[in-house]
C-alpha cells in the first residue's frame, strides 16, 4: 500500500466514522420537523380535550410554543401519568411537557429542566367569612380533601394555632360545596384547582384570597438525561417564556390570577 492510498483510506474511514457519529436529539428533532411531546390529557387545566376531542390546556400550548421556537410542528402524544417516562424511554416522544414534579428519584432516569410551572397552595374563602389571607384562617373552621398533602399540612397548622377546627372531606368537590354552603370558612388547595372551581360557576360567593405558605410543587420538562444540548435549549426556552411574558399570558388563559414565581430563594438553579 503506498502513501497516497493509505491517506485516501484514512480519509474515507474518518468520513465513515464521522457520518456514523450520533447526531444529538436537538438536531434529530429539527431534522425530523416534528416535536413529539408527552402530555397528560386528563389533568385540566394543564391538559384535557375540548368538545372536538382535540388536546387543549397549558401543557399543550407550551408544547406548541416550544415547537414554534424550534421551527417544527408539534405532535401531542397523550400519555397517562404513569406512562410519561416509559413513553420517553421507548422513544415514542422527544420531550415530556406533562406537569412532572422534578423529584430526585425521577432525575435518576430522565433529565429534568428548570421548573416551567409551579403548583402553589392557595387559600379559597367564603366571602362572608371575612378571611382575607392565610393568617385570617386562625380560629376559623377550615377543611380540605382528606389524605392530600395540603390537608395534612393544614390540620397541623390548625393544631399549632390551637384554635379553630379542621374538617376533612372525601373529595375536592365536597370541600368546595361545603365552602359555598358556609359549613367551612376557608380551604387550602392547589391554585389550579382553586381557580378552576371558582371559575366553574358551580359555586357562588367564593374567592381565592391568597397563597398558603406550604411547599410549592415545582414541575419541569424532561427528556433523555444524556441529551445536554436539548436540556440546555429547554432551560433557555423556559427562561424566555417567562421573560417575554408568555408564561404569565398562558397562566392567565388557563388558570387565572397571579402566575407563581418559578425561582427558589437562597440557592442557584
Amino acid at each position: 500500500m503506498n502513501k497516497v492510498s493509505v491517506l485516501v483510506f484514512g480519509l474515507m474511514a474518518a468520513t465513515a466514522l464521522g457520518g456514523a457519529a450520533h447526531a444529538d436529539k436537538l438536531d434529530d428533532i429539527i431534522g425530523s420537523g416534528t416535536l413529539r411531546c408527552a402530555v397528560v390529557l386528563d389533568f385540566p387545566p394543564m391538559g384535557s380535550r375540548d368538545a372536538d376531542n382535540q388536546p387543549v390546556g397549558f401543557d399543550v400550548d407550551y408544547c406548541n410554543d416550544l415547537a414554534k421556537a424550534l421551527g417544527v410542528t408539534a405532535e401531542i402524544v397523550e400519555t397517562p401519568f404513569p406512562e410519561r417516562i416509559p413513553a420517553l424511554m421507548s422513544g415514542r416522544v422527544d420531550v415530556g411537557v406533562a406537569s412532572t414534579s422534578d423529584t430526585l428519584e425521577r432525575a435518576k432516569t430522565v433529565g429534568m429542566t428548570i421548573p416551567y410551572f409551579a403548583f402553589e397552595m392557595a387559600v379559597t374563602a367564603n366571602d362572608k367569612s371575612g378571611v382575607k389571607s392565610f393568617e385570617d384562617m386562625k380560629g376559623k373552621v377550615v377543611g380540605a380533601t382528606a389524605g392530600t398533602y395540603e390537608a395534612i399540612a393544614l390540620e397541623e397548622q390548625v393544631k399549632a394555632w390551637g384554635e379553630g377546627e379542621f374538617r376533612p372531606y372525601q373529595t375536592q368537590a365536597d370541600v368546595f360545596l361545603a365552602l359555598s354552603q358556609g359549613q367551612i370558612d376557608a380551604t387550602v388547595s392547589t391554585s389550579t384547582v382553586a381557580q378552576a372551581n371558582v371559575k366553574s360557576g358551580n359555586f357562588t360567593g367564593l374567592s381565592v384570597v391568597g397563597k398558603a405558605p406550604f411547599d410549592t410543587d415545582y414541575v419541569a420538562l424532561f427528556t433523555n438525561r444524556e441529551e445536554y444540548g436539548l436540556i440546555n435549549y429547554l432551560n433557555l426556552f423556559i427562561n424566555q417564556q417567562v421573560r417575554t411574558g408568555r408564561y404569565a399570558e398562558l397562566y392567565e388563559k388557563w388558570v387565572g390570577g397571579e402566575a407563581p414565581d418559578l425561582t427558589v430563594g437562597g440557592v442557584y438553579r
Partner: protein
Amino acid sequence: MLDTALTWNDLLFLGQGAAMTLAVTAVSVAAGTIMGIIFGVIRFQAGPIWSMPLMFFLDIFRSVPLLIQLVLGNALQSIAKLGWPPFTTSCVVLSLYTAAYCTEIVRGGIASVPVTTRRAGRSLGMTWGQDMRYIVAPLATRVSLPAWIGLTLGVMKDSALVLWLGLIELLRASQILVTRLQEPLFILLICGAIYFIISFPIARLGGYLERRWSPHD
C-alpha cells in the same frame, strides 16, 4: 329521550378509532396469513423434527400474552433504534401473532387432505406445485376457513391492546370520551356496538363461503 353529552363529532371520533382498528387488523391479518401459509407449508413438508426451530419461534408468539409481546416489541425496536412509529410496531407484532396461529390452521388444513388423493394426483404426472395448487389448496381452504375466520375476529378484538403503544383505536377513543364526558356505560355500549357492526359481516361472510364451497353437504 336519552340525555347525553355525546355529539356527532364524538361519534365521528369513535369512527376514526374504528378505522384505525380496521387498518391494524387488515394489515396484520393479511401479513399474518401470508406468513402463516408459508410457515404452514414448511411445517408440513419439513416434518416435526426439521421444523422444530420454526415451531419454537412461533410457540413464543402463541404462549406469551399479546400485551407483553407488544410492550416488549416496542422496547426492542427502541433499543435497536429502528425508529418505528407505534403503527408499524403494532402491525409487526400482531402479524407475527396471527402468523403463529395461522401456521397451525394451515398445517391442519393440509394434513386433512387425504394422502390417497394427493398420491393419485402425483401419479397422474402432477408436479408438487400442481398438486399443492389444484388438489391441496382447494380442499385445505374449505377445512381451514372456519378456523381462519375465528382467528381474524379474534385478532380484531385483540388489536384493542395496541392502545398501550399510544395508537388511538376504537377502545382508546372510547376511553378518551369516557374521561371527558364521564358516561362510561353509554359510551362503552356504543363501542361494543361498533365492534359488533365490524365483526358481524366477517362472520357472515365466513358462513356464506362455507355454504357456497360445500353445496352437497
